[in-house]
């Protein structure tokens, strides 16, 4: 009776809290909402928040390639040959490596495929700091399209030989390059890094790899993006081989875009320390989703549920706006 009266008094698209006094009450509310075309938004300790009417599923509303769990990000390690001042996870030569070993990586990729993950992104740190990164990439690219993020600066000696032996099919090398000239790139990534990155880009292209260039731009970037695009034109890279993202205030960056679980479209990310909401914040305790990635399918569902709740709550707010 209380349930019918409380929810019945609310216009479609608005929410209300129904008081409950235990799990049995919660179950009753769940059954009733399912049977009457209403939606449970959130279960609180002493109430259940109910949306009047059916809510469109915000996850379904996303294009397939943006749904949480379509992509999986994996930090294979956190140590790096560079110490970029905007690094979102504070990687550096002295960072704790936190390596995901080959065996665990293989299990993760196989489980990801079974969970419906369609695309893998391998990042770090600098993944090519791991001498056996090629074992991981060879397995991953055989299972699903795989992109490895790299600064393209460590391909010498044995690493170069292992790079050359990597499969071209199913593997993309995403190389960091922030500008068309050394000034801006080196300001944040270290002296001489631009020239070496450019060499790396050319090596990767010459070796027949699919290459994507990714720029990370801060407030001092000015109109450098235009010059960078001209350079990428010269290198023959198409639009889908270019990524420009802004610096996020995470890790080593003391300025940049502010992000949080509530405001960021999730992209499930696994590190040796657990699962994170998004790779841009894989060292931020507030963005940690789980301590262990296994079972991955369940973790992906958990992320989707949390995203769904944020979005529906935001849409409910829309219906409360006092307008004209």
């Amino acid at each position: 009776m209380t349930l019918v009266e409380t929810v019945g008094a609310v216009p479609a698209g608005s929410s209300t809290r129904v008081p409950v006094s235990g799990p049995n009450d919660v179950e009753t509310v769940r059954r009733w909402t399912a049977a009457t075309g209403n939606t449970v938004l959130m279960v609180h300790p002493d109430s259940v928040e109910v949306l009047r009417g059916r809510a469109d599923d915000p996850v379904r509303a996303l294009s397939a390639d943006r749904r949480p769990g379509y992509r999986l990000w994996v930090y294979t390690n956190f140590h790096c040959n560079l110490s970029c001042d905007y690094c979102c996870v504070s990687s550096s030569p002295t960072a704790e490596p936190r390596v995901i070993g080959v065996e665990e990586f293989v299990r993760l990729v196989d489980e990801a495929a079974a969970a419906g993950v369609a695309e893998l992104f391998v990042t770090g740190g600098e993944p090519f700091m791991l001498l056996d990164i090629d074992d991981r990439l060879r397995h991953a690219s055989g299972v699903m399209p795989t992109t490895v993020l790299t600064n393209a600066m460590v391909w010498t000696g044995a690493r170069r030989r292992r790079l050359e032996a990597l499969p071209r099919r199913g593997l993309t090398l995403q190389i960091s390059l922030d500008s068309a000239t050394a000034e801006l790139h080196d300001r944040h990534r270290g002296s001489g890094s631009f020239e070496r990155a450019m060499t790396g880009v050319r090596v990767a292209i010459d070796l027949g790899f699919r290459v994507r260039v990714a720029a990370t731009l801060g407030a001092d970037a000015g109109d450098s993006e235009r010059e960078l695009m001209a350079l990428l034109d010269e290198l023959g890279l198409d639009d889908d081989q270019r990524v420009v993202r802004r610096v996020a205030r995470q890790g080593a960056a003391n300025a940049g875009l502010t992000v949080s679980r509530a405001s960021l479209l999730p992209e499930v990310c696994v590190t040796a320390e657990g699962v994170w909401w998004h790779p841009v914040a894989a060292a931020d305790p507030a963005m940690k989703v789980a301590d262990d990635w296994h079972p991955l399918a369940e973790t992906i569902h958990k992320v989707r549920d949390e995203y769904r709740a944020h979005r529906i709550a935001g849409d409910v707010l829309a219906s409360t706006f006092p307008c004209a």
Partner: protein
Amino acid sequence: MTNHEELLVGAVAYSANVVPIWEGIRDFFRDSSTPTDFVLFSNYERQVDALLAGHIDIAWNTNVAWVRTLRRTGGTARALATRDTDLVFRTLMVGRAGSGLDGLGSLEGRRVALGSRDSGQARILPEFFMARAGVPVSAVELTVFDSDVGKHGDTGRSDLDALRAVLDDDADVAAVGINTWQALTAAGDDTVVDLDVVWESEPYSHCNFTALDSLDHDRAERWVTNLQGMDWDDPEHRRVLELEGLRRWERPVLSGYDSLIAAMDAQGISECW
């Protein structure tokens, strides 16, 4: 003109709240010298047509509907009353906090999300202010959300769609009405802490009660005087005022529509869609 003793006010049904708002206003006027009833329309174009046809006496119009009525009456339509909040309406450009963007000039070459094509606050005025600042929409990467067309942005849907584009990294900034922004911040929405106002427009006028010049001026004046008797400190009145988003009914400031008139002229927006 309607022939009823009651003045008939038109309003657009932009949300379920419209019914309790107008039932409250109807009840408020019941024992006054200007009893009032209301009818609801599905969109502002239909409402303006009904006003011009004499099917209603007064239309609760958006700023865009007001300008259209003004044009279609050769400038003789009258604005009777407005919300206090309508006198200081603004458009904001909102981006992710820490973006480094500051002012319209900083938007050149960036991704800008705007709202419905019939929304003064979410589309028409932002485009106008951008062009005036030397950053026309041709100088940015533009995404538009024509949500709830016909409601002139009242539902806030296109503001939210544009803000969502910022959160999903499909845009760097979104144009939103100050009412949307204030509602989000007042509600403590946890996404708002990651957003920041990059630019704020000058104030302009928004909704008003519009009447034709043919409505008896004394009767209209009495109606406005009665309307202004709604008291924030009276719980019954306050319920309606809060739902409608104001503290006091005020006299309109017509110069507050100058920017929108100029914008609609510059953009060649027709008298009706």
